């Protein structure tokens, strides 16, 4: 059978890939894509811990569900922001959106 | 339903707050909606407390419907609610008077939303004091009640009027309602500072604020505290408690905020102020002072009785000396509440005897009765003030033919206030006098002077308003005085019915009070 470590390492990999996307991509939408990957990695962990822990205790799954909700909210607001920024500044490159300093 | 039953006190306590929060989302301009909503919302606690009354077992010892919710765990203070016959009576009074006061406020057109919300908050504040079985919670609700009242007086009080403040530093004027609200707020808060300190001392000493626990342990606590002998500490703490409550009751000479606040408050504010807020002080005496400081209370019973008698006598005299109708009624509260404290003082001097029980019965019933009659009186003053925009007794005269129904109601309510046998005030005053006479004969005898003057000022009020030659100013034209309307009659109706019912058959409520008093003391 599959030991827990496989899932954890798989999730860690996914998380690191997402992190790379977040840190390295220029496009704001792509950054959000990376964020999604990270969230999914977390969810895998949650589900795995549920499955490998006490199955009757649904905490892991509930957490995952709430992460879904948070992710949906985050995407909705994040993309709305991106579109809004695009409308006013005509760019979605994260480096160029740097007015909020000093 | 089961949930409500299990958390009945909590629901009653916070339903008004909840309703007020919901009101926040109602449109501000819809006065009708806001009024009816607030009124309807305040009916719910009333209905629930009627249910509470039916579910209440007067024979059971201790608190009923007890419920404990975590609140401030670091201090071991919890939202601990409970109900015995004493608080039940007061809760009934509060939940009854609030809808009535709200119904009475239907004529308010200015910022209705804020007004109604403040009223609902006020209800929670008052109920909290009556339900609290935790000293800290008691104090919190005690202060919570002040804030809405302050704004009600300050914002919705009588718009006219200047008040000249004279002091040794010179004279200045400020608007009357501002003066009154400030005086009310600062006086009450200042009075309760000592209470806060004493409560904290108890909390530190016992590590929690649970009233039952502290009551059981404090009265026979005998170790020295902070290097001071325990009796000194107890005496100081006793007076800290007493002053806080005496300001609220109010006892002479702490009473001068009352005529100002009552006079300037909006009608419904005065109703609640006189009907319930004053009871908080007396309730404090019964709930905290007597159980916590039996020995000190007994020792200082004479002093308390002196102040009570002074309140009765001077209150009556001052009331008689007024030319302002509302101020007259306001001073009558000083007079009537004096009887409550007299009863309490008498009981303190001989806890456990039958005389004491009778005096306490009288005091508690007097609290309830005064709640009914004072609220009614203030409302009636408000009714006529709304129509004439004056409270000066000399401006009225002979209005009876114009407003026969109003006149009848006014006389009825006045008579209840006067203590006419057959109406509620008599029962309680008689019980207080009966209970106090063997214990404090001199003070009781002197307080009879107050009783006499009660008649004088009540009759003065009726004489100046209703009787005598008609002041033609109010008979014709745009100033024509209109009769009390159906809504206003509906406001008075429950009060009047209760006044009569208690006057004729007091046993139903007195039985609960009596059993509670027997168990408490």
């Amino acid at each position, binding site marked *: 059978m599959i030991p827990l470590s496989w899932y954890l390492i798989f999730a860690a990999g996914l998380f690191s890939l997402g992190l790379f996307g*977040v*840190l390295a991509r220029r496009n704001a939408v792509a*950054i959000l894509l990376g964020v999604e990957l990270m969230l999914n990695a977390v969810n895998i962990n949650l589900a795995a811990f549920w499955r490998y822990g006490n199955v009757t205790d649904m905490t892991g799954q509930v957490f995952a569900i709430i992460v879904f909700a948070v992710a949906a909210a985050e995407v909705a607001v994040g993309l709305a922001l991106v579109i809004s920024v695009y409308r006013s500044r005509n760019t979605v490159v994260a*480096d160029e*959106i*740097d007015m909020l*300093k*000093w | 339903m089961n949930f409500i039953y299990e958390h009945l006190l909590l629901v009653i306590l916070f339903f008004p707050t909840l309703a007020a929060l919901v009101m926040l989302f109602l449109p501000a301009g819809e006065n009708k909606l806001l009024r009816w909503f607030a009124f309807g919302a305040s009916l719910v606690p009333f209905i629930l407390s009627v249910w509470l009354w039916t579910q209440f077992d007067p024979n059971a010892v201790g608190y009923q419907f007890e419920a404990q919710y975590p609140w401030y765990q670091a201090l071991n203070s919890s939202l601990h609610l409970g109900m015995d016959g004493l608080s039940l009576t007061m809760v009934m009074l509060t939940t009854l008077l609030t809808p009535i006061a709200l119904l009475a406020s239907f004529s308010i057109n200015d910022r209705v939303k804020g007004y109604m919300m403040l009223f609902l908050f006020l209800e929670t504040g008052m109920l909290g004091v009556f339900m609290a079985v935790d000293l800290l919670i008691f104090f919190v609700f005690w202060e919570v009640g002040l804030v809405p009242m302050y704004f009600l007086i300050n914002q919705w009080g009588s718009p006219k009027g200047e008040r000249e403040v*004279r*002091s*040794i*530093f*010179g004279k200045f004027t400020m608007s009357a309602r501002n003066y009154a609200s400030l005086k009310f707020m600062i006086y009450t808060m200042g009075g309760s500072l000592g209470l806060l300190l004493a409560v904290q001392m108890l909390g530190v000493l016992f590590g929690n604020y649970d009233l039952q626990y502290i009551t059981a342990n404090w009265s026979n606590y005998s170790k020295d505290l902070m290097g001071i002998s325990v009796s000194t500490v107890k005496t100081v703490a006793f007076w800290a408690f007493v002053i806080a409550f005496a300001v609220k009751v109010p006892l002479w*000479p702490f*009473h*001068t905020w009352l*005529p100002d606040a009552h006079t300037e408050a909006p009608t419904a504010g005065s109703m609640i102020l006189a009907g319930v807020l004053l009871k908080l002080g007396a309730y404090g005496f019964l709930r905290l002072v007597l159980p916590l400081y039996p020995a000190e209370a007994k020792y200082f019973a004479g002093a308390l009785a002196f102040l009570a008698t002074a309140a009765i006598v*001077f209150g009556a*005299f*001052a009331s*008689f*000396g*007024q030319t302002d109708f509302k101020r007259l009624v306001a001073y009558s509260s000083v007079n009537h509440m004096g009887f409550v404290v007299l009863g309490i003082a008498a009981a303190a001097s001989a806890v456990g005897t*039958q*005389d004491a*029980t*009778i005096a306490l*019965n009288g005091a508690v019933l007097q609290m309830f009765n005064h709640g009914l009659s004072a609220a009614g009186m203030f409302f009636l003053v408000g009714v006529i003030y709304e129509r004439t925009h004056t409270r000066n007794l000399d401006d009225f005269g*002979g209005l*009876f*033919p114009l407003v026969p129904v109003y006149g*009848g109601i006014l*006389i009825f309510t006045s008579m209840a206030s006067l203590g*006419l*046998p*057959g109406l509620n005030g*008599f*029962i309680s005053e*008689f*019980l207080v*006098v*009966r209970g106090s*006479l*063997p214990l404090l004969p001199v003070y009781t005898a002197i307080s*009879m002077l107050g009783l*006499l*003057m009660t*008649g*004088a000022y009540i*009759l003065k009020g009726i*004489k100046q308003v209703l*009787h*005598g*030659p*008609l002041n033609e100013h109010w008979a014709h034209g745009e100033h024509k005085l209109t009769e009390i309307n159906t809504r206003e009659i509906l406001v008075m109706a429950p009060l009047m019915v209760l006044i009569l019912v208690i006057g004729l*058959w*007091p046993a139903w409520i*007195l*039985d609960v009070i*009596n059993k509670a008093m027997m168990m408490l003391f």
Partner: protein
Amino acid sequence: MTTETLIWLIPLPPALAFFLIVLFTNKNKALSHSVGVGAAVLSWLASMVVFFRALGVEHLGEHPFVSSVNWLPTGDTWFKIGVAIDPLGAAVLFFVSITIFMIFLYSVGYHNFGQPKGDHDRAGLPPHGATVTDEQGHKHTVPSVEPMYSRFFAFLGLFAFGMYTLVVSDNLLTMFVGWEIMGLCSYLLIGFWYGKPSARAAAIKAFMTTRIGDVFMLLGIAFLYSATGTLTFREIFTEEMLQHLVSIDPHFLGLTGAGLIGLLLFIGTVGKSAQWPLHVWLPDAMEGPTPVSAMIHAATMVSAGVYAVIRMFPLLSLDHNTMTVVAFIGTFTAIFAATIAVAQNDIKRVLAYSTISQLGFMIAALGIGAYVAAAFHLITHAFFKALLFLGSGSVIHGMEHGVLHTGNHSVDPQDMFNMGGLRKKMPITFWTFLIGGFALSGFPLLTAGFWSKDEILADAWANGHLVVFVTLALAAFMTAFYTMRQITLTFLGEPRTKEAEHAQETPWTMTVPLMVLSVFAIGYGWVGIPENFLNLQLAPSWFHEFVGGTLAEHPEVIPFNPIPLIVSLVVALGGLLLGWLYYRNVNSAKEDFFQIPLLKNKYYFDEAYQVVFIKPVIWLSEVFTYKWLDQGLIDGILHFFGPATGGIGGFIRQYIDLKVINEFIGDGLAAVTQETGRTLRPIQTGRIQQYMMLSLVILAVVGALLYFMLGAGL
């Protein structure tokens, strides 16, 4: 229905009538008086049934009708209220129910039921008359109906309720309830025409004066209650209870407990029964409509005072000092009021003082221990005084006819000097008034007043109270004198004014009560003829037997003595004769020798009270308590705090906050912070990913540090 239930029900119809009229029928005059009179009839019927059943019971005094219920919980016990009818109660109930019924009936006519509405009548003022046009087109002014007709019956109903409650109650507290309800009603009824300032003042005076007494009485009740633990008469008037009361020492003027309680209760009576020095309200109470005067002075309220004293007699009689006080007050009032009555011109005022005087008789009788005589006089007096008041009302009513006819409103229809010769105009009124007057004067053998007054005098003589005897005899003489003065001035001779010429007999609703009452004014005396009158060995006096049975110790029948009889014959007949002789020639107030200013102004008691009590109280209230104490002293102290706090605050702000905290600490810190910030500003690039990297690096570093420093055992 058992008698006990019936007793409970006696007070109810008038109370129900009150509520019915107030709440429902107040718009309809006919319905209102039907309800009111109907209630009076019901109560009367019930009272009669109870009375006759009481008559049929042997030893009613020992086994009265009683019934009680729990009312107030007082600790472990209950305070009970209940009803009881013993012989005294039954006798009082008898006259109360009849007079109340008569007064109700009388009021219908008195308030001009069936007449048109007045032209300018207004609620709160007496009706001024209405103009009607007959078939020929002539305009007449006729009496107009009272605008507050329904209200009057409502008040009467409440009043009757109070009285019945008082009579049937078996304890002091409910008695006090009835007592005070009557006080309220007297206030309302005296001030019935509240539009008149005099009426308004009189109402307040009545209420306040009686309240002085009531307050003491309440104190007495409370004292009694706490001393005995009960207020029920039966339980108080037991041997051991009374002994216990005597044994209490209240440390007050050397009185025993019983004496002090008795005194306190008696002060209540002084107020209620208008005894000196609290008598001042009663003459002023004449401002009310006449049925009210009758109600207050005859049937109910003042009787209630005496009734209470009679009730409490076993207690009062325990202390010698108290009895002396009672006797003194009664006797003094009797003579004092009689002297004033001589100088009054208002027909009702004379009767008012006469009432005070007669009540003094009763009180004096009690003071000397003449229990039965007092009760007897109470009842006979109630009948004939009600008769007199109603009669005077009838006279006034007739005079008002005349006033309306001539239209001259300056003529006072109550002034006796404006009357004269009314016997022809108002025959029924005249004859009934004559009966009443003779009864009051104690016209020998025939009238009730003779028998009762004679009994008092006989008791006084027999018990050796010579001072009392002489004074009362003098008062009785004066009573006869002023009564005859009144009759002469009012009815005899020729009309002195046009108005008197045009006076008219009143309608049947007014005359029937007069006739009924005159029957009792004569007949009721016969039930109390002493058994050894003139040593004739008649049948035992029924009244003496019956009412005397109330007391545990049956009062003894006093032996016959001719001296008091002769004295009372002389004073009655002499007074009447003298009055007639003198006043048949007097035609105006100026000719009257007895218009002495001191008497006419009632010994200046009102003025004295004004100066001694009322003015100081007003000063005490308005100036001392409110202005000086509250607004001056207490608020002054308070107002010290506000500005003082403000001053301290100002100082702190000026010298500490602004200088030290703001300028030195606050601004200095801010300058440092600003400089630091300016230096570090470039770090902020605004690029989110750089921030994230940085934070991640820091997170990693901190995490690693924690991991290694806190140990790998995590």
